[in-house]
């Protein structure tokens, strides 16, 4: 072992918790290296100094003040139960209302779904014709917004973000409709998407982003998300069984509003607006480590998913 390797282990060596073999190597080195011994002494002094920081006695009247707070807490609890009951009842009412309006929307969207299915079943010539025609229509026409919504989602996401999972859906009805020829449809849609993405690259207003994303597209994932409902905010159950649906429900429970989702250093950053007095409970229920939470300039929460800043 050289000095660099030994010094890397010194902060833990002083705890006598290294494997015997490693500890022996370090001891051999220390026996012949004064500089490393000096380094080790520094760590020992630090450890001793930390251990020597004595406990401070509790401030006078600490327990009495705690008792008062506990009494206040006990008095507040019955009131809190009533408030919780009212909030739960209101949530159930709103939930039923949203689910109802969701079913109306489903029916409306289902109208265009046969066209998606027929597109998937169509042959190459038909695809070319449609795409040629598309060249002469505005890129964000109503038809495109509705009729090819799922393919737009597929094309423009290298992987689904949490935002996508919360606000995009392929309806169960539509899925059932194409179930009979599901395997073929996937393959045909993949081909269709490839052709569309080539044409769209020439046509799109944000061509750079689109091209970049198309390049990183994972066709397999696209096909998967084309047939798998992954939306649960309004009551559709996630088939992937991931935790996002739990997170969505929790966000909804605390009235949190998602303002933005972005990606930074490979992590997903979700900017959320939520009442100050609900922040603690929300984060606690989400199991979000405090160090994975930041704030933007307007004091909204920025939740960083999939990171450990310190690692």
């Amino acid at each position, binding site marked *: 072992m050289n000095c660099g390797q030994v010094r890397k282990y010194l902060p833990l060596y002083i705890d006598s918790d290294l494997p015997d073999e490693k500890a022996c190597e370090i001891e051999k080195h220390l026996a012949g290296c004064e500089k490393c011994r000096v380094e080790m002494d520094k760590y020992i002094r630090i450890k001793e100094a930390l251990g020597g920081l004595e406990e401070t006695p509790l401030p006078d009247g600490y327990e009495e003040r705690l008792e008062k707070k506990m009494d206040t807490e006990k008095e507040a609890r019955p009131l809190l139960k009533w408030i919780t009951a009212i909030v739960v009842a209101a949530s159930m009412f709103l939930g039923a209302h949203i689910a109802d309006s969701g079913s109306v929307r489903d029916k409306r969207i289902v109208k265009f779904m046969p066209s998606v299915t027929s597109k998937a079943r169509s042959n190459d010539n038909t695809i070319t014709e449609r795409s040629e025609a598309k060249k002469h229509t505005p890129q964000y026409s109503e038809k495109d917004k509705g009729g090819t919504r799922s393919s737009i989602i597929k094309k423009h996401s290298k992987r689904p973000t949490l935002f996508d999972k919360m606000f995009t859906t392929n309806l169960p009805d539509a899925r059932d409709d194409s179930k009979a020829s599901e395997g073929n449809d996937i393959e045909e849609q993949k081909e269709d998407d490839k052709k569309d993405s080539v044409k769209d690259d020439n046509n799109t207003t944000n061509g750079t982003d689109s091209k970049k994303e198309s390049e990183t597209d994972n066709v397999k994932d696209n096909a998967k998300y084309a047939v798998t409902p992954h939306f649960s905010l309004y009551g559709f159950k996630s088939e992937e069984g991931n935790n996002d649906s739990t997170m969505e429900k929790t966000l909804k429970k605390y009235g949190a509003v998602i303002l933005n989702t972005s990606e930074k250093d490979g992590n997903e950053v979700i900017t959320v607006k939520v009442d100050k007095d609900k922040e603690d409970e929300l984060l606690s229920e989400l199991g979000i480590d405090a160090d994975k939470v930041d704030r933007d300039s307007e004091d909204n929460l920025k939740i960083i998913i999939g990171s450990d800043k*310190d690692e």
Partner: protein
Amino acid sequence: MDTDAFQEIIQKYAGKVYNTCRRLIAGYDAEDVSQEVFIKIYKNMNKFKGNSNISTWIYKITVNTCREYWRKNSRHVKMLELKEDIIEQDSNIDDGIINKEIKKYISEALLSMDMNKRAVVVLRDINGLSYEEISKILGIPIGTVKSRIARGREYIKKFLEDRELL
């Protein structure tokens, strides 16, 4: 909840919880934060299933409450003013072995490092907990505990070296 049992918890852990809070959040509001810890314990006592040691559970609540406090307040806190209290107390403890200056700056070093490292150093070197206990309290692997302790100690060493105290 059984009031006697809760009183016993307060008697046994109040000092530890208060002092841990004092180290983790610079002494500022340590009383309020530690009392909040006990209110949380009281409210959640029925959720404690005994799967872990009760001290692990209490430390877990303590660290999480301090983290939350720190996240909300560290930006607004005038650190220099707050540190005076805790640093002054530490430098007055003279056991004849450890240099007073080192103690004073060690407290400052602790407060200036990030909460992840601070938590493991406080739990290990001040509270004397094992790697395994810390791992359970923070919900991180033992390997991560070790690496954070190593980095925390390296940070303090550099902090003191920069001030020519080591």
